[in-house]
Structure formats: structure tokens, C-alpha cells
């Protein structure tokens, strides 16, 4: 079967800029005074990651902070660009990374639904068709004509999830989105996820909540320092993660890994 998401030997390098020369002025001053010069350090956020997600499969992505989970999701969503290797996604992607960031605060909920729809590649007519279901799911009927700046953070998240969840995507990318809203809404989101799985959507799901991961995923991938540490059945990978965490925390009391993994230390 052709995978829905195909990640091949993917490497992503970030450039850390100390004393970042963000302006022409500092760039020019750097020529005269080496103390003002920008120092660049690179680190590899992802190293040689290869994985496939089959159509209809739900893959969980776990790992300590800074292990490259969100970076991988952004590369699949195509907002980041690979340094080496390739990412292929077949079908329409609905990203749920950092829900609600795409909202315009001055616009009403209704206007934001249309704006968000067009951002995700929908025509106005397609959004019009989905509009009633989005509003109903979000339970924001009474506030839909109010500017989003007056929404609570929970209302923000509900609207964001509802839009992303109704786009009829083929591939769904979720970054900790289910930890939003009150308990009732969280349950609703999980139900919706189960519906998506039943309908055969391909889902990639980042979470620190191992119980949710175990409940929702077919397979799990464990990332550590930007490398695939384990990839396979839920139980095996989750217990491997727990082992790792236990070793690291009992060792010297530090959490697993530094915030920025695998600094290569090379200077550009």
C-alpha cells in the first residue's frame, strides 16, 4: 500500500544565532567590531528520520521536550523546509498545530471561520457548506458574531478545533490539541478523533499524555534527540519511553535530554 505520509532520511538543521544580526546596522557594525558580529551555531533538530504512516493509521509521536516532535509535524505540514531528505504527503492536510494562532483578533468568529477555511485551501463555497456543522460542534452559537478578541482561551481552542475537525481532510496533524477546553469538550474531541479513525483518516498525533496515546494510536514513534529511538506497537514503545525516563530521572535527577538536542557545535 502507498503510505499516506512518507518521511525519508529527513534531516533538519537549525541555525542558532547568538547576538543575532537582525538589522543592516548591526551587520555593518560587525565588519568593524568583532564583538558585535553574529555567532552562528547549528544543531540538528532531526537526524535521519525515516517513517511511513499508512492510510487510515493513527501514529503517536512521543518523546521528551526538544526531541523534535513539533519540528517533524511542521515539516509534514510544510511550514518548515527539509535540510536533507524528503517528506511526501498524499491528500489534503489539516494541521492542528498551535490551534487558533491563525485567528484575526478583530474579526468575529464567523469571519474567522471563513478566513481560516481559505487559509487551509478551501473555496468560499466549500466553507459555506461546512459552516453550520462547525458552529454547532464548537457550541459557540451565541458568540459567533462577537470579535474573537473577546473570546476566552477555551473558546478560541474550541473554534480552532471545530474548524480543523470539519475540513474533511485526508491527513490530520495534531499537536497537543486535545488538552484544550473543559472536560466535556475534551471528551467530545476524543470522540471526534475516534470517528476520524473509523472513517479511515490518517492521523499523526503528538502528545505527552501517554494514556491518550495508548487509547488512540495504532503505532507509536519515540523520538529522542531528533532520532527515532523506537517505532512500533504502542505497548512496547511506551514502556521503552518509560524505561528511558526512569533511567534519566533516577540518574542525576535531571530530566531526559537538554532542551536543544544534539548540538553539533559546528560554527558556520
Amino acid at each position, binding site marked *: 500500500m502507498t503510505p499516506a505520509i512518507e518521511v525519508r532520511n529527513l534531516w533538519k538543521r*537549525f541555525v542558532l544565532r547568538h547576538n543575532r544580526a*537582525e*538589522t*543592516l*546596522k548591526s*551587520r555593518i557594525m560587525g565588519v568593524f567590531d568583532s564583538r558585535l558580529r553574529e555567532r552562528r551555531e547549528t544543531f540538528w533538530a532531526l537526524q535521519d528520520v525515516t517513517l511511513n504512516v499508512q492510510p487510515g493509521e493513527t501514529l503517536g509521536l512521543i518523546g521528551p521536550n526538544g526531541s523534535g516532535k513539533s519540528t517533524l509535524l*511542521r515539516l509534514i*505540514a*510544510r*511550514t*518548515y*523546509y527539509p535540510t536533507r531528505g524528503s517528506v511526501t504527503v498524499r491528500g489534503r*492536510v489539516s*494541521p492542528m*498545530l*498551535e490551534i487558533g*494562532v*491563525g485567528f*484575526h483578533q*478583530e*474579526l468575529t468568529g464567523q*469571519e474567522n471561520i*471563513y*478566513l481560516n477555511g*481559505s*487559509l*487551509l*485551501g*478551501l*473555496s*468560499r463555497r466549500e466553507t459555506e457548506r461546512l459552516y453550520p456543522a462547525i458552529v454547532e460542534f464548537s457550541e459557540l452559537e451565541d458568540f459567533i458574531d462577537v470579535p474573537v478578541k473577546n473570546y476566552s482561551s477555551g473558546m478560541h481552542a474550541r473554534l480552532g478545533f471545530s474548524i480543523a475537525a470539519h475540513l474533511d481532510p485526508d491527513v490530520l496533524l495534531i499537536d497537543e490539541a486535545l488538552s484544550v477546553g473543559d472536560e466535556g469538550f475534551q471528551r467530545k474531541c476524543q470522540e471526534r478523533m475516534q470517528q476520524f479513525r473509523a472513517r479511515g483518516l490518517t492521523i499523526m498525533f503528538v502528545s505527552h499524555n501517554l494514556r491518550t496515546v495508548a487509547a488512540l494510536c495504532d503505532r507509536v514513534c519515540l523520538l529522542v534527540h531528533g532520532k527515532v529511538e523506537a517505532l512500533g506497537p504502542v505497548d512496547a514503545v511506551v514502556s521503552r519511553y518509560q524505561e528511558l525516563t526512569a533511567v534519566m530521572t533516577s540518574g542525576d535527577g535531571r530530566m531526559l535530554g537538554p532542551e536543544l538536542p544534539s548540538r553539533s557545535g559546528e560554527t558556520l
Partner: protein
Amino acid sequence: MTAADVVAHLRYRDLLFSLVLTELKVKYRGSTLGFLWSLLNPLALILIYSVAFRYIIRIQIERFTVFLIAGLLPWGFFASSATASTISLMVNAGLLKKVHFPREILPAATVLFNLIQTLLALAVFLPSLFVLRGSVPWTLVFYPVVLAIQAVFVLGVALGLSALTVSFRDLRHLTEVGLTMLFWLTPIVYRISMVPAGMQAAFRLNPMTSFVSVYQDIAYWGRPPSAGDFLVLAGWAVGALLVGWAIFRRRAPYLAEDL
């Protein structure tokens, strides 16, 4: 760019219109005078320059206000687009990080928004121009063509400036200073023939000089532009678009991480 890319871009034309509509809504919401506010700025400039140049400096240009309007409105389109384009990517950092879409749409929306503002201003000031002038020159039929060519030129400038400002944040302030200087180096409140002969060649290196001169021809002098005029304008437009887009394409893949 492949054919598939073009098709993908066409799918996003609703996004372009949504973004422009958003800017218009946000700008005019909650003000009863609505778009009249955006006429205030050109109106104030026209009044103050008319007073200064007609009555104080006593410039030797007949019907100075007509002459001024002919050059000032197209300049406003260029200047306000350039200023707004410098921040068009930075204010949308959230969108760029969250969703994949053709990045060109953001500066393009800025230019389209300013074009609409310019059209609104033209709808009001062009008729008043003919009250002042006494007659309607037939050469005005060239106006939409010249404006379309200018829009391409402005788009090129906006693409380049928006991408460069992400790397060099102070470009925003440099642009403002640069535009103020360029305004006085463009024959808007004086005629190019008033510039000392030795400096005229240098003045003609300024693309806005070419555009403004053609606008004055068709709206003030009633002279049809020559084929050569159109070639020069088209050359500036295509050149700006190619350079601006090349700069933009080079930075586009890394915008989400640089912002």
C-alpha cells in the same frame, strides 16, 4: 514554477480575497465615516501642497492643483504599498508558522488592498480634477492600462521588501526615510523640465519619475503616451517583478523559522 504549482496557487485565490476583505473590514469597522477617512490623507496633502506651492513659492505651473493630483495619487499607491509591505510578513508570523500556503499571497494582499484604496481615492478626485481643469482629456482612456502596469511594478517592490525586512528589521525605517527622499526627487510638485539639465538624466533613473510623467501626460497635459513610454514602464514593471520575486523565492522556505 511548474504547471502543478500554478494550479495549486489558483486554489488559493479565495485566500487572497479573504485577506484583502479582512484588512478592509478591520480598517473601516466601527467608524461611521468609513472609507472617507482614507480620503483625508490625500486631501490634506493636496490642500497643503497647493497652498505652499501656489501662494507661497508661486511655482510656474498653470492649474497647479490638477497637476499635483495627477502625480500624487499614483505616488500614494506606490508609497503606502511599499511601507505596508515591509511588515506584511512579520504581522502574519502566526499564519506562516501554522499553515502552508503560497507565501506570495501576503504581500500581494497588501498591494491589492492599497490598489483598492487608490481606486476609491481616484473615484473621488478624478472628477474634481475635471471641474478644476474644465474639460475631460480623452487620453484618460490610458489610465487603467498605466495603473495596471504600475500595480505589477509595485507588486515586485513589495515582494522584495517584505522578504528582505524579515532578515533586516531596520529596513522598515530605512524604507520610510527613503520614500520621503524619493518623493522630493520625483517630479510631483514640480516639472521635470525645472530640474537643471545636467541632473535630468539622473532623475530619469528613478522609476517613479517615468510613471508620474506618464500620469501627468494623460491626466494633466492631455497627451497620449508614446510606445516608448509604455516600453519603459513595462520594463520597470517586469524588472521589479523578476528581481522582487527572485528575492522572495529564495527566502520563502525559511520564513516560518526566521520569524
